[in-house]
């Protein structure tokens, strides 16, 4: 299927209106950027609903939208595990148990929390790895965006790359984190509204949910599964071979539901930064909970159309197919684009394309705004130029550094994007490697928050040990049918996993366990350096419990958390 769109003037008009507002928001915020605090931390002034929408919007980047729609077309309803098991419980945990310490400790970043709780070297290690990883991700999504604009809109690759870099640079340079957050909220609404026409038309086409179930029933039986295998979440997870995902229920629970998702949602500064920008402790706690409510309905927006695509691909009369790679395999990442092409006339088509471009850019802006904070506070301020007596001059100085870091971050992203276009596999490999820091980091932060005995030396060693075990596991195992060393097995292959997902889960489980064990054992062997007084506000048992009595019951975190968990349970039972 040819993937180039013929856009009409109306489509460009919709696109131009959106980008005019994006830049306008940056411009309007410019006058508030008086110091580093306003630029890098949004002045800790965001209402909970704004921070909450930005919180999930950062994660709703285009790679997520395109990837999850593709997974919907591959695994069907089982893809929802990434949301209802994979994200929601971790978000609730972050809100109730971790946000009070992240926010209450007055740390300005996750690495800085590590410094306050443990020591300088633990912070340094995390800050440097995080800075490299964020810029790498930003470069990779910039590359993916330029490729998309080239293939789908027929634009020149280099011009697309520069144009997106300039837009992202303009609004993050002008308005800093506030601008990134506000634009994430705008992007959230444009993604939802831009994708709704596709959801509606694709479901209309297959005859609603009942019609979809019937069509996918035929696909499932043809592939050797039970008829409702593509439309059930848990029913066939008793065995790995009984469901299209190829993972059993305990693998899903432990790998995805615990280690991977907690590692991602609870320690990734890119995400946590949104909640840290909230206006009060209660707002910071409510941020992930408010984000969780729309998050649990995102599958209906993204995975559902992907499932329709699966049905259409197997229906010759629908005249629908995905573009193929050299090996003749469908490229699942193009699912959502193929659907836009299938159903949308000019007008809403521009809206759909705008939604995709928007999600790419906000992903990059998120990376850049997290990078400049970590660079300025955790690297520049701690190792290059410490604070002085003159607070006011400092604020101005670090604002300037933050702005320079923004420009620098965008330039390095552009370089990374070109590297990705030359050595795509190496960049994928690097990204896999850096994603391995999440699971050990979660072990270390978790122990730090809930066990006052954990020490800095132990945490530092635990982080490294977990990371190396993850690396080792990746080097010794491979998913079935892997044809490049990027997927693993670059030392020698000791074990073959049925699917790549299973390999990822187990990498994370090994990394987390190793890191936790090493941290616990070494903490008991090393002297406790920080006194209990120093750890107040950083460790659960030493911090006075947060009183929510003056907050009306419907605004309390506990009530919101119960609401979120009840809703997600109902959804799980409905699609069991």
């Amino acid at each position, binding site marked *: 299927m040819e993937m180039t769109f013929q856009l009409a003037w109306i489509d460009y008009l*919709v696109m131009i*209106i*959106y980008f005019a507002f994006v830049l306008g928001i940056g411009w309007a*915020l410019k006058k508030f950027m008086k110091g580093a605090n306003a630029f890098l931390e949004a002045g800790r002034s965001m209402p909970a609903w704004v921070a909450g929408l930005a919180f999930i919007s950062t994660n709703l980047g285009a790679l997520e939208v395109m990837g999850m729609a593709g997974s919907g077309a591959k695994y069907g309803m089982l893809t929802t595990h990434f949301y209802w098991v994979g994200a929601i419980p971790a978000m609730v945990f972050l809100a109730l148990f971790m946000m009070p310490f992240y926010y209450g400790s007055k740390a300005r970043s996750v690495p800085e929390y590590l410094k306050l709780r443990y020591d300088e070297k633990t912070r340094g290690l995390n800050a440097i790895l995080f800075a490299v990883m964020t810029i790498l991700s930003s470069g990779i999504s910039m590359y993916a965006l330029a490729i998309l604009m080239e293939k789908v809109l027929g634009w020149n690759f280099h011009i697309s790359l520069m144009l997106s870099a300039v837009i992202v640079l303009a609004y993050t340079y002008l308005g800093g984190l506030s601008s990134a957050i506000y634009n994430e909220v705008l992007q959230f*609404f444009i993604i939802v509204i831009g994708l709704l026409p596709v959801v509606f038309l694709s479901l209309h086409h297959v005859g609603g949910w009942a019609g979809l179930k019937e069509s996918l029933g035929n696909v499932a039986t043809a592939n050797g599964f039970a008829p409702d295998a593509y439309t059930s979440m848990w029913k066939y997870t008793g065995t790995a071979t009984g469901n299209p995902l190829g993972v059993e229920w305990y693998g899903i629970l432990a790998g995805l539901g615990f280690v991977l998702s907690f590692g991602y949602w609870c320690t990734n500064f890119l995400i946590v930064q949104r909640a840290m920008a909230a206006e009060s402790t209660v707002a910071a706690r409510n941020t992930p909970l408010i984000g969780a409510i729309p998050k649990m309905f995102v599958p209906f927006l993204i995975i559902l159309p992907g499932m329709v695509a699966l049905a259409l691909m197997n229906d010759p009369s629908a005249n629908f197919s995905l573009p193929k790679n050299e090996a003749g395999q469908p490229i699942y990442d193009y699912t959502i684009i193929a659907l836009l092409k*299938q159903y*949308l006339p000019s*007008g809403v088509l521009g*809206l759909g394309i705008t939604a995709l471009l928007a999600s790419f850019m906000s992903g990059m802006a998120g990376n850049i705004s997290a990078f400049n904070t970590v660079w300025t506070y955790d690297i520049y301020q701690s190792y290059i130029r410490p604070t002085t007596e003159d607070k006011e001059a400092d604020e101005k100085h670090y604002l300037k550094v933050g702005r320079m870091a923004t420009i620098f971050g965008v330039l390095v992203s552009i370089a990374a994007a070109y590297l990705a276009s030359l050595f795509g596999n190496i960049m994928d490999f690097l990204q896999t490697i850096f994603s391995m820091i999440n699971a050990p980091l979660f072990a270390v932060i978790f122990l730090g928050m809930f066990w006052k005995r954990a020490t800095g030396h132990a945490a530092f060693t635990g982080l490294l040990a977990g990371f190396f075990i993850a690396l080792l596991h990746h080097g010794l195992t491979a998913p079935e049918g892997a044809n490049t060393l990027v997927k693993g097995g670059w030392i020698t292959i000791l074990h073959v996993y049925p699917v790549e997902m299973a390999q990822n889960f187990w990498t994370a489980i090994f990394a987390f366990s190793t890191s936790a064990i090493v941290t616990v054992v070494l903490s008991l062997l090393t002297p406790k350096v920080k006194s209990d007084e120093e750890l107040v506000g950083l460790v659960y048992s030493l911090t006075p419990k947060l009183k929510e009595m003056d907050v009306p019951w419907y605004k309390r975190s506990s009530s919101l958390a119960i609401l979120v968990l009840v809703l997600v349970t109902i959804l799980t039972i409905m699609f069991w």
Partner: protein
Amino acid sequence: MGLDIKYPIGLMFTLMGIVLTIYGLATLSDPTMYQKSFQININLWSGIGMLIFGVVMLALVKKKKTE
């Protein structure tokens, strides 16, 4: 920050809503235009939806100001 985000959101969706509604009305009698969308004038309906959303957002800003 001194900027209420509901204001630009409301303004943008009102504007886009107006544009798509007008486009939908202008293409009302174009039979080939909506073949893809099963003869549903998806521009008109999306436009109206966005217009309503935008106006509600703007109304919320106004309500907050008068309080």
